[in-house]
């Protein structure tokens, strides 16, 4: 197991390292002088030159890359051009919105999809199954921002159950925080739930066709018992894979959803930073998100090993 983890950790590190190179390289080719961007348009050329010096922009690319990386290890991701505050601090402020949002969405999606998938799989071919699958087809096709609009109109404006957007901060109370995140989480979650329930259903159906299910049934287990005791856990691997991907997707999906609900989250931060060419924020946030995805993948791998004893001993 530890061997397995070590190996995965190594590949995680390699991916992250490559990611830093890519992020750095992509932003190198962005047009515009960071120093001028930072000082604004009224700045004199002298001031810009001084700042370039201070920022080390005159150093060779490699040096700048290395010092970026070095700073990162000390938790220093540079300062935002627009806000002037440290990028790490900005990320810290924003992640407390985006992470709960993505987690909530994942929880909602899972809570809906798994039971639905199990139900549909156990009644495979029935009218209910067909109906559920039709609904999920629909769910996959709905753009989440459009769905979000409808949600806002119905639940926030018509029923006034939840706010239409915004986020007051967790210090206003956990309940109010969750209320603010509910609609966005649902908007993010439902299309994903549609996908996940299809995956869960097909994974279960696949497992139900395996020999060992027949063996279990030959032991006298009912169809239900065979499903619960033998099929589910085996169907978990594809489901966990998709959940892992979804988590990353949800985190990034906040870019659009946070705009619709004007939530002060990472998604909006990075979107704003990208449109305003706030490079340190873009670099920092993108790297942070990439790190998140990579770590999620790592956790998914660990989960595989936890689910499947065959993976525990010696890697793949």
């Amino acid at each position, binding site marked *: 197991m530890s061997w397995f983890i070590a190996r995965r950790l190594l590949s995680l590190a390699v991916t992250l390292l490559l990611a830093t190179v890519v992020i750095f390289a992509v932003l190198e080719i962005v047009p515009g002088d960071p120093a001028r961007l930072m000082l604004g348009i009224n700045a004199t050329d002298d001031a810009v030159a001084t700042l370039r010096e201070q920022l080390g922009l005159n150093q060779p690319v490699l040096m700048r890359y290395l010092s970026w990386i070095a700073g990162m290890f000390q938790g220093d991701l540079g300062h935002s051009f627009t806000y002037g505050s440290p990028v790490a601090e900005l990320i810290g*402020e924003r992640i407390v919105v985006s992470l709960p949002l993505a987690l909530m969405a994942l929880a909602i999606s899972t809570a809906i999809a798994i039971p639905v998938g199990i139900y549909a799989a156990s009644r495979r071919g029935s009218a209910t199954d067909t109906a559920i699958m039709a609904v999920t087809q629909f769910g996959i096709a709905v753009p989440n921002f459009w769905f979000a609009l409808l949600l806002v109109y119905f639940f926030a404006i018509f029923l006034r159950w939840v706010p239409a957007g*915004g*986020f007051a901060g967790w210090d206003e109370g956990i309940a109010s925080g969750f209320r603010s995140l509910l609609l966005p989480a649902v908007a993010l979650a439902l299309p994903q739930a549609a996908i996940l329930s299809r995956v869960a259903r097909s994974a279960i159906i696949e497992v139900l066709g395996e020999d060992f299910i027949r063996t279990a049934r030959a032991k006298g287990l009912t169809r239900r018992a065979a499903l619960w005791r033998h099929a589910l856990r085996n169907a978990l691997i594809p489901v966990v894979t998709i959940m892992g991907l979804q988590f990353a997707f949800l985190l990034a999906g906040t870019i659009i959803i946070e705009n619709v609900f004007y939530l*002060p989250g990472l998604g*909006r*931060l990075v979107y704003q930073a990208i449109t305003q060419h706030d490079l340190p924020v873009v670099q920092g946030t993108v790297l942070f998100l990439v790190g998140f995805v990579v770590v999620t993948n790592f956790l998914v791998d660990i989960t595989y090993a936890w689910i499947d004893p065959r993976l525990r001993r010696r890697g793949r």
Partner: protein
Amino acid sequence: AFAAKDNIVLGVALEPPNLDPTSNAAAAIDEVVYANVFEGLTRIGPNGEVLPALAESWDISEDGKVYTFHLHEGVKFHDGTDFNSEDVVFSLDRARGEDSTNAQKGLFKAIESVEAVDPSTVKVTLSSPQGGFLFNMGWGDAVMVAPESAATNNENPVGTGPFKFSKWNKGSSIEIVRNDDYWGDKVALAKAEFRIIPDAAAATSALLAGDVDGFSNFPAPEAVPQFEADPNFALVIGSTEGETILAMNNKKPPFDNLKVRQAISHAIDRQAIIDGAMFGFGTPIGTHFAPHHPAYRADLIDMYPHDVAKAKELLVEAGYADGFKATLKLPPPTYARRGGEIIASQLREVGIDLEIIPLEWKQWLEGPFKAKDFDLTIVSHTEPMDIGIYANPDYYFQYGTDEAKAIMAKLDATTDTEARYKLLGDMQELITKDAVNAYLFELAKIGVWNAKVEGLWTNSPIQANDLTGVKWKD
């Protein structure tokens, strides 16, 4: 009975880059702190009038060069330090100083010296008389700051106003609370929150859902009818200082050709733009001047009526019988993006094929504004009384003819109101005749707020959300 509500949530479209109005031109800063957190010697009232603020009164010397301000006594900054004449000297010297980063240094250009006569008296000497000096001192860029806190006002603004800064959730909201030690009348609101909602749709839903109590500048004119019909909301349409123009690069062919510019001026249909982009909100203008100002030349609007045939004819005369291609760079606001589409469609009628290029503000400032890298662009000039930009050949649309310069120079030296208005009228006529830009409309200020809220400004002589008079009706 319930106690009247004493807090308010106001929506604002843009998040300020920081909270120091003396450091940055961004209107978003003034929208939060002006008159609320920071005060100047004078202030500008709801209708553009100059009112006393930290200076309780002032004397002007005969020659109009020396202003003696008498300060309120017992004024304290939010951090507890006293406000006195030293702070005024500090503030004004800082703003006009060599290494000042003040975005409106022009406001202080005329100042020769600032002296503290005694703790509550300040004497400001100008190098030449300036008609608008008191008005200038009322700008957000001229507010009073303390030496102790000036450096940290970006994040933690410390002023003398009736509200104190409380917290800033980056990307989300800024909160200010009542300053109980305020020198003047206590404000009715205990707390105010500026909720940052950049998206028009989100703004609409936030209002409808009751998340915010109002927008003094509501960004979605198309959504207004639903508020108009709803007795829970007050809809208050006022004027702004925002002349929305189709700016043309006067130095770049073919826009250096007067006939081309005139053709474009004829080709556009202002009312269609106002209706299509602003859903009817806005006043057509024929020149670069606020129509509610007495010096506005209303007749100029008839100089270039919407006339496609005439426009085509002018293009033929200019040698562009087959029309031409050009770009139209658009900053983010709705008026620009929607107006741009309509203008593109209108110019297509006369054979001018525009490629629309949407830009973020930053890119717009760097490109069209700073580097003059554009053919056409749409922007609203929201500074009050800014016709002087036409005397600056270096301004982004690059007009600044000698004739314009001469008029403006004369204006500066004139103090008589009638004469000033006449000169302003001449200037308007000149730029309209030269079709420097195509003048579209004056932005309307669309205020939508809870019908129980009173005291928010109707008009927008400067960009501010002055909350001092705001309270809830029971």
